[in-house]
């Protein structure tokens, strides 16, 4: 059994960690947090130069052609560093949708730009509150023109294009949903930035008024593609969450060793130790579930839907748990703007919702386990 990343993949993780430690220290994250820039453009360019944006994009479309296992290790580091760039929306959502459903011409048009850091993409799925569902999609597509609104759209205000889920039929069947690529600078597209709890990552509302749209994939195939994209993104996002959880745990541990109260390091009190031990347990369970997700993703295994849901749930719980208790270990200092704890807390709770909430994925996991048990 070799249920581990290869030495080359681990080396890539080390490289990414080193690069991000230099290029994306908390100070850089705070530039975006404080509203000085919508995202870290220099970092985005650097990530492209390192080949990280196109790590899972085939070489013939301008990528490194490495694969999804390599993307998983990069994702973990992006989460760890709280990188304030549109990585997940561009790479896990837009690029994966195009890889799954795009024509050769579409791949040729967008993927090299994504790999080079020249195009930011996103997935426009949600329309107000609620979880991913074909029934919740009201944006209409008629004769290559879209009408309606999407919100929240991750990184929508800085994206160059969006993959948009739209209704091409009036019923509630999945086959009445199709996907389109829309260039967001085009006529008939209105983009309004929205504020959200994670100030280091943007959200937007996008309104379409007879906006020109190009079909992505087969007519009526949209929901099937969305489901695949969400499963893939769930695994990749779970790695970001595990990276963030590990970092929050380390911050808590380091502070517990450093901070003296009642004449001793607070890390010698069992109440604090046990809190940190429980954080370690959550992070470890999540990491192991993520590894299984990575295996399923990289081999395109039939187990992917179940593995993705398990990784997503476990990593969401772990990041929320570690981020929350990291503040608790820090006490009053953890609730200051100056300490970085809140940045992890914000991120943990925002990414917990981005691909559908915890209860959505719990529901999905049980459905998928039942399907497997019935088979």
């Amino acid at each position: 059994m070799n249920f581990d990343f290869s030495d080359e993949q681990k080396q890539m993780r080390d490289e990414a960690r080193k690069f991000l430690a230099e290029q994306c220290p908390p100070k850089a994250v705070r530039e975006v947090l404080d509203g000085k820039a919508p995202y870290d453009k220099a970092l985005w360019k650097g990530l492209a130069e390192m080949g990280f944006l196109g790590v899972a994009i085939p070489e013939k479309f301008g990528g490194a052609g490495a694969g999804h296992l390599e993307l998983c290790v990069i994702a973990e580091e992006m989460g760890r560093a709280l990188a304030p760039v549109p990585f997940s929306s561009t790479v896990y959502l837009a690029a994966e949708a195009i890889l799954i459903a795009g024509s050769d011409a579409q791949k040729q048009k967008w993927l090299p730009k994504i790999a080079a850091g020249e195009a930011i993409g996103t997935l426009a799925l949600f329309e107000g509150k609620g979880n991913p569902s074909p029934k919740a999609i009201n944006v209409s597509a008629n004769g290559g023109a879209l009408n309606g609104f999407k919100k929240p759209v991750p990184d929508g205000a800085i994206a160059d294009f969006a993959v948009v889920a739209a209704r091409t039929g009036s019923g509630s069947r999945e086959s009445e949903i199709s996907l389109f690529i829309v260039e967001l600078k085009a006529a008939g597209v209105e983009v309004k930035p929205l504020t959200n709890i994670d100030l280091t990552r943007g959200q937007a509302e996008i309104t379409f008024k007879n906006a020109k749209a190009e079909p992505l994939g087969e007519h009526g195939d949209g929901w099937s593609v969305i489901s695949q994209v969400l499963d893939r993104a769930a695994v990749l996002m779970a790695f970001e969450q595990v990276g963030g959880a590990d970092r929050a745990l380390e911050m808590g541990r380091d502070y517990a060793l450093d901070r003296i109260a009642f004449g001793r390091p607070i890390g010698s009190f069992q109440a604090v130790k046990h809190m940190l031990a429980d954080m370690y347990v959550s992070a470890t369970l999540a990491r192991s579930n993520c590894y299984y997700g990575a295996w399923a993703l990289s081999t395109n295994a039939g187990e992917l839907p179940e593995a993705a849901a398990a990784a997503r749930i476990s990593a969401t719980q772990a990041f929320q748990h570690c981020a929350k208790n990291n503040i608790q270990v820090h006490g009053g200092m953890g609730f200051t703007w100056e300490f970085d704890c809140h940045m992890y807390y914000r991120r943990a709770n925002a990414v917990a919702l981005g691909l559908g909430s915890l209860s959505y994925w719990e529901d999905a996991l049980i459905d998928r386990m039942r399907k497997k048990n019935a088979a």
Partner: protein
Amino acid sequence: MNFDDTPQEAEFRATVRKWIEANAPKEFEEELSKSSLGRIRLARHDMVEVGKAWQKKKAEGGWACLHWPKEYGGRGATPIEKVIWQQEEGVYGKLTQPFQIGEGMCGPTVMAWGSEDAKRRYLPKLASGEEIWCQLFSEPSAGSDVAGLRTRAEKKGDNWVVNGQKIWTSGAHYSDYGLLIARTDPNVPKHKGLTMFFLDMKSPGVEVRPIKQANGMQEFNEVYFTDVVIPDSQRLGAVGDGWNVSLTTLMNERMSIGARLATGVPEMFEFCSSLMLEDGLAIDDPAVRSRLASWAVKSSGLKYTSYRAISALSKGERPGPENSIGKLVSGMMLQDIAAYAMDLEGAAGSLTGESEELAHGQFQQMLLSSPSMRIAGGTDEILRNIIAERVLGLPGDIRVDKDVPYNKIPTKGR
């Protein structure tokens, strides 16, 4: 990343599979295959006798304690080969329960600290199941703080004379030998006055009494020592070095990689899939689904954590500290699942008994037995301390009795 054996591992697995196919006691397969969350019992046979027969057969084939050196009854197998054996032994592995303390704890301690004569005399018979060993560490007033134990061993000529009481000794009533830690010097701090021995459980003055547990069962014993004589040749390690010796034993207890820890999740999933509530199947209820999903990812997390450890072994590396989470997670989960399953049954959930509608009473049994899962082999709190100190590097607690002579430490209660 893959789940495949290396060619050597595959070859080894094929050899194991062939041998088990030809030799396993198939007449017990069905009974052993039934999911069971507690101790295994055979309806018409004595578990220890059936276990001994299987262990003997394994020893003759060279498959008992296979990771031990050949001269001590093993086959010199690698750690990954041991894991492959366990996977292939499957349900028959349940028959090895009476030998697990010996194989996992007593044997390794004798191997590390015993004389060559002792190793050759005792280890092969332990491996073959001919002689069963138990472990005599815990006492009524020394559980988590086992170094605070009171059982005394006093030197008389070439012998030691032991007086005191041990508790929670699994299998003491059918064991031939016991690994005993006792206090040999009460005038020094508690960790420094301990010495390790092994003794013949048939020695005069050894009395084994079953304990009636909180769940109504009797699976453990108390062992009383009244002027029990142990020859000095049965001492393991130096006088006063018993604490250090015991760490070998306890380290081995926690290293059981690939061990099958029951979580209760498959049982709970099956139960919820067939239980009808007022509005339909339990598994269609959003609240039930949410709880089930949370338990399912813990269970799969444990499974893949052990796969990561197995992968490390396969590469000849030492597994990381991740495995320390297993018992902590599964113990709490068993208890929570049991309570929730009963909750779904409403008032009838409190009924015990074997009826079909109550899932054969398994969750009620689980509820009553699960508190022990969170205590035996290291309480949840001790396990969290271990994770915090050994994995995360946090400082140890302040120990007020650390440098105090044992006989000056205040004591009270059991």
